[in-house]
Structure formats: structure tokens, C-alpha cells
């Protein structure tokens, strides 16, 4: 755990107590069973917004607290522990950072205060296929209108504002489209992790360009990737701790199974990988806050290491729980499903390994 300042410690403690009291994994289960189309509990999201969490990276002049990325990472880590579903990642990090970095004054004035107070939800429409590939953009911006198809837009089904990557006269960049525009057609996707996502077709939807072109697209994606890695860290740590607790109580052959060295050493390996991944995730968030030039490589390092680690821990959670881990009544399956969905989002391990090496020139 990084060394925190006073505000960060308070944020983390608040997030920890809120998720444990108000949003344990049973709340996620209830949300899933309810089949709610947005993939999160609106009442819980309101509570989060009331605590100011949606404004953590937004400047004070637009109603945020401007605490930065390590701070929102701490909140997401706690939310990740209990698999709390919310638009915090794509709205308060994704859409918010797109507007902060590339929004015009009028776009900022209109949308940032609403995003900060949680009354508007923003989403990022970037991918156009089954894999994250932000360089491959067929969606077009012409004459003030967007045409094209975007896939797997997280929290996109009912988002109020869509930040869409498209090819315009000056190349790829972000464009702002209102969710209720007549040219927006959305199809809800039912995914294994029960979180909200949609395919979106833009049929000449009215759009306003953001500034900054492809560079801002990349910067925004890196902020979301780092923040998602923090959520994955929380989920992986929780999955590990639940598994460890089980190793200490499950008795076979007359002793707790945690006394078997075969399992102990797998637990030690998971702990080692979690510590390494935590360092990578925190370093990426700190680099974004510090504005250092190595953000892209540190983010790819974090997303790749965290993806590998969550992958391992979620598999081991099911395996070490044995038959009970296969049942829907147990939480292990939730962590396993969330792991794969989070790995695939905004670039899986293969994507980020390749990107890391390209940045380093090989």
C-alpha cells in the first residue's frame, strides 16, 4: 500500500466502511438477480456520488475535488473488493478525464458538474470489435454527424453522454454525443460478469469534437486502464483473502487443508504476485498524478501484471474451494467472471505486453 496523505487515507477509509456496510458482495448478487438493465444499483450509485466520489479527478471549478488518480484508485480498489458495480470507472474516470483533457469550455461547463455530482453518467465508446484496438477506427465524423458501430461500451446502455472515438478531417479523436440523440441506437449486452454494457450504432448522430485528437484518446484510455487495474487489485486481493480463510477452516484427512505444503506454496506464489502487481498499479496511478512521461509504459505494465495476477487468483479461488466454488451460491464464480471481463476491457495482457515493448522500441 502506497504511502497516503490525509485526504487519501480518509477517502480510503470511507470507501472501505461504505462498501463493507452498504455494498457487500450480497448487494452485487441482488443486483444481478434483479436483472436491472444498466448493470448497477442506481440507489447505491447515488450514495457514492453524494460522498463526492464521482468528482475525485474533476477540478474544483467544475464541482470536483481534484484529489487525483491515486485517490480514485483507492476508492475503486475498495469497490473491487466487493465487486460493487457502478459507472464510477467509465464516467468519473473515462468521460470525466476526456472532458478535462480535451473538452471545450462549453463542454466542460455543461457536463463536468453533472458528472461530478453523479446526475449524468458518461461512457467511452472506443472499440469496434471483440478485442480492444483503439487504433482501428471505422466510425466517421462528417458534417457534424457520427456514423458507425461501437461494441462493448461499458455502462453505455443508458449513459447520458457518450465520448466516441471517430475519424474526422484531422484523424482520430473524441467526439461528444448525447445519449438521447435520435441517431443513437443501443442494444444491451448480457455479459458473464453481469455488469452493464451495450453495442451502440450511430446513424448520423449529432456530435461535437473534443480537442487533442488521438493523443487525448490515448491519455484518457491510460487513465481508465490504470483505474481499472486498481479495481482489479481490490477484487484479486479479496478473492485471495477469502480463499486463504477457506484454507484455514476446511478440514480433510483430519487437518485443515491449509497445512498442506502444495497449497501453501500456491498461496505464497499468489501473495508474491499480488505484492508485485500492487507496486505496478500504484506506480502507474502515481505517475499519472505526477504527469511523468513514462505513463504509457507504466500503465501497460500495471494492466498486464494485474491481469495475469487476477487471472491466476480467480482460477485458484475456484480450484481451492473445490466443489463449493463451482456453485452459484458461492461468490468464487463472481470473481472468476469479473476477472475475465476486466482483463478484456481496455486491452488484455497480450495487448499491453505488445504495447509495452513497442514503447521500448522492440
Amino acid at each position, binding site marked *: 500500500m502506497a*504511502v497516503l496523505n490525509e485526504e487519501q487515507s480518509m477517502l480510503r477509509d470511507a470507501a472501505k466502511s461504505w462498501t463493507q456496510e452498504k455494498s457487500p458482495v450480497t448487494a452485487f448478487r441482488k443486483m444481478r438477480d434483479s436483472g436491472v438493465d444498466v448493470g448497477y444499483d442506481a440507489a447505491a450509485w447515488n450514495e457514492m456520488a453524494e460522498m463526492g466520489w464521482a468528482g475525485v479527478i474533476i477540478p474544483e471549478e467544475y464541482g470536483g475535488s481534484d484529489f487525483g488518480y491515486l485517490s480514485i484508485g483507492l476508492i475503486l480498489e475498495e469497490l473491487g473488493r466487493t465487486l460493487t458495480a457502478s459507472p464510477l470507472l467509465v464516467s468519473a474516470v473515462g468521460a470525466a478525464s476526456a472532458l478535462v483533457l480535451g473538452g471545450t469550455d462549453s463542454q466542460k461547463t455543461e457536463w463536468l458538474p453533472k458528472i461530478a455530482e453523479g446526475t449524468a453518467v458518461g461512457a467511452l465508446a472506443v472499440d469496434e470489435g471483440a478485442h480492444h484496438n483503439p487504433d482501428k477506427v471505422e466510425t466517421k465524423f462528417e458534417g457534424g454527424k457520427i456514423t458507425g458501430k461501437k461494441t462493448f461500451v461499458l455502462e453505455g446502455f443508458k449513459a447520458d453522454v457518450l465520448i466516441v472515438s471517430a475519424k474526422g478531417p484531422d484523424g482520430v479523436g473524441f467526439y461528444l454525443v448525447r445519449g438521447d440523440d435520435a441517431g443513437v441506437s443501443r442494444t444491451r449486452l448480457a455479459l458473464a460478469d453481469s455488469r452493464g454494457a451495450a453495442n451502440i450504432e450511430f446513424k448520423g448522430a449529432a456530435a461535437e469534437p473534443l480537442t487533442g485528437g488521438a493523443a487525448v484518446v490515448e491519455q484518457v484510455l491510460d487513465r481508465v486502464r490504470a483505474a481499472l487495474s486498481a479495481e482489479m487489485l481490490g477484487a484479486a486481493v479479496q478473492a485471495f483473502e477469502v480463499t486463504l480463510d477457506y484454507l484455514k477452516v476446511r478440514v480433510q484427512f483430519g487437518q485443515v487443508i*491449509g497445512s498442506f505444503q502444495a497449497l501453501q506454496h500456491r*498461496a505464497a506464489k499468489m501473495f508474491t504476485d499480488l505484492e*508485485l502487481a500492487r507496486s505496478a498499479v500504484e506506480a502507474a496511478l*502515481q505517475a499519472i498524478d505526477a504527469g511523468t512521461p513514462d505513463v504509457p509504459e507504466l500503465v501497460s505494465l500495471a494492466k498486464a501484471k494485474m491481469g495475469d495476477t487476477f487471472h491466476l487468483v480467480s482460477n485458484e479461488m475456484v480450484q481451492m474451494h473445490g466443489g463449493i466454488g463451482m456453485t452459484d451460491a458461492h461468490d468464487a464464480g463472481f470473481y472468476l467472471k469479473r476477472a475475465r471481463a476486466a482483463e478484456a476491457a481496455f486491452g488484455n495482457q497480450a495487448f499491453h505486453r505488445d504495447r509495452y515493448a513497442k514503447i521500448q522500441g522492440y
Partner: protein
Amino acid sequence: MADFGGGDLDALRTEAKEWIAANFPASLKGRPNPMMREERSTPSPEQEAWRKAMGEKGWGVPTWPKAYGGGGLSGAEARVIQQELGRAGAYNPIGGMGVMMFGPTLLEYGTEEQKQEHIPPIVKGELQWCQGFSEPGAGSDLASLQCKAEDKGDHFVINGQKIWTSGAQYADWCFCLVRTDTSKKHEGISFVLFTMHQPGVEVRPIPLIAGNSPFCETFFTDAIADKKNLVGPLNGGWTIAKRLLQHERSGLSGAGGGGFGMGGRGIVQMAKDYVGADEDGRLSDSDLRTRLIMNEMDGRAFQQTAVRSMMESRSNSGPSAATSIMKNAGTRWMQDRAELTLEIMGHQGLGWEGDDFSAEELGAVRGWLGGKATTIYGGSQEVQNNIISKRILGLPDLTQNN
């Protein structure tokens, strides 16, 4: 990342720069540290002069107390010295087991007399120490050691055998675990010091798979250790040994500072040179490329963890749990890297000797073989995992039953 020092370090930096310029012999610039070589040759007059200068200054062990000849500096100040040595192309001539393991342990557990006697020669690089811990029947289960010390009034008489005694053939003194009570296991072990230059000590180097002999078998036949050289209480040596092993592990993992960087052109450039790249600059062998990236990432995350655990231990949050993983993470990374280096070089990476192979190639094969020891010594990979399981994760310990 974080800046570890303030402007008050500037004065020290200037002093260090000037002192190194005045004392470091120009002919040694960029030369390897003779302390890091397994085969020790007689030092040149320049090497001797540099060792003496650093020894007098105390900067070879910058954070050790001034009272015993150390530098008396803070961690931040010590890094300034390290940086300035690096910048000047100078090596630290003060090293070995006395610096890495024994000195820090004696400073913590020794009596005032013991510290006065033994610390200054380590600071000055005058005496080398070796570690008498492992025995043929006591490796991972170190506490089952049998080497016996009998109480003869003002001294102990030591009989038995030690093995894997690194550098025993060059050592002047030995810090040794001996059995002083056969009725108990951990509580029957004492920590004693004695000179290697006595008739009862015999050293035989062990040729290893890498072709050299950094380790020895060491035999004691009525060897003598003075009573004043018992460290800690009689039968209280195990606590001290555990503390010493912590120093050893932090040194072996590279977390103790320095020793991390790769010399030469770096593994990525090496891979491009041997294997080639496509028109986009990617390594032509995509399978190798993926594994190389993973190793690069492992190394980077390891470094980040070293920084994080240092920052955490400097804040008020107490010792960092991250330190427990450093040895396994560091050695895993290094061994994988050595394997990758060999694979990158192909057959050229398997040369044993001769002019058909570059020094880098010959070094790679020896380093690969020698590096296999890193997951065995200093507490094997498996022992490290036992320690994490028991002490950090709170899983039951089944290794302490006997």
C-alpha cells in the same frame, strides 16, 4: 518518482564529488570491483590505495555508526555517496560477508567490546569473513546442525563440518553456528566467532557446475573460539542467525540497494543483435519477444516493489509485508533472464572457453549455471514460501514438529 532527499544533500554531494576525484585512482575508472570476483588475485597498489582511502573515510559502509569507523550517514545521504561513486566510474572496495551480513548483525547483538574489536577491520576492508552455517545434514533444516562446541572454561573447542562456506578459502574469520546443547534443537545453538588462521581449520573448495569454486567444505578439528567471541547468550544463537539471514536475503534479492542494473548493452539490444527485428523494429521471434517482455515486466515490478517497501518502511506504517517476497521474486527474475540470455545467444551462448566465444557469451553460460544457486542458498525458494505461508499468511507450520 519520489525524490528521496532535500536540498541539504547538495553540500554532501559536492564533498563526495571532490573527495572521490581526489582519491579514486584514474586507472581504476570503470574497472570491475575485485570484491565481486570469485577468484581473488593479489590487489594492485592502486586497488590497495583505494581500499585504504575508502576504509579511512568510512564510506564503504556509509550508514554504519561513526564510533566504529563507519560513515554515520542517513539512508538518503548514503544514496548520494552511491550515486557519486557510480557517476565517477568508481566501485565500492569495501564488501563481502562482513559488510553484507555479519557487521549489521554484530552491531545489533554484539557487546561493546565485540563491536570495537570486529567492526573497524570490516569497515577498513582489512579482514574478510565467512559464514559457517550449512552442514551436509543441515541445509533447509538449518537448526538440525551438529557441529559441536565444548565449553573449556575460557574457550570453546569446535569439532565438525560446515559446507557451502562461501569464500572460506579467502576468509580471515568465521561467524559460525555451533551446537552447545544436544538435548534441544533451536535452543541448543550458539553463535561464535573465531579466526580461520589456526591449525584446527581445513578448507577444501568444491568445484561447481559453473566451473569455479566459490563455495568450500570446511572442517574443524579441535578449533578454538575464545569465550569473549560468543555473540549473544549461550544457546541463544538461533535468534541471531535468523536476523542475519534476513540481512542475507535482502542482499541476495538486490533489495539492499545497488547491484541491480545490467551491464553492457542490455538484453533487448542483445536480442535484436542475435535474433534480428522486423521492419517495425519488433523482435523477429515473436515467442521469444513475449517471454522477454514478461521478464522485463517482472524486473520492473520487482524494482517498483523495492521502492514501495522502502517508502513504506520509512513512513510510520511499520515494516512492509512486501519485503518477504523479495528474495523469491528477485531470484526468479534473474534466473529467467539468464535462461533468456542463453536462448538469445543460441549455440554461441553455450561456449565453455576459447576464442570462438566473446567474453559476454562465456559470461552468460557461467552466470546461468552459477545463478541456479540463488534459489537454493540463503533459504531456498521453498523455504521462502514456507516463511510467507507461516509468518505472513498465518497458515499452519508443519516444519517445526521435530
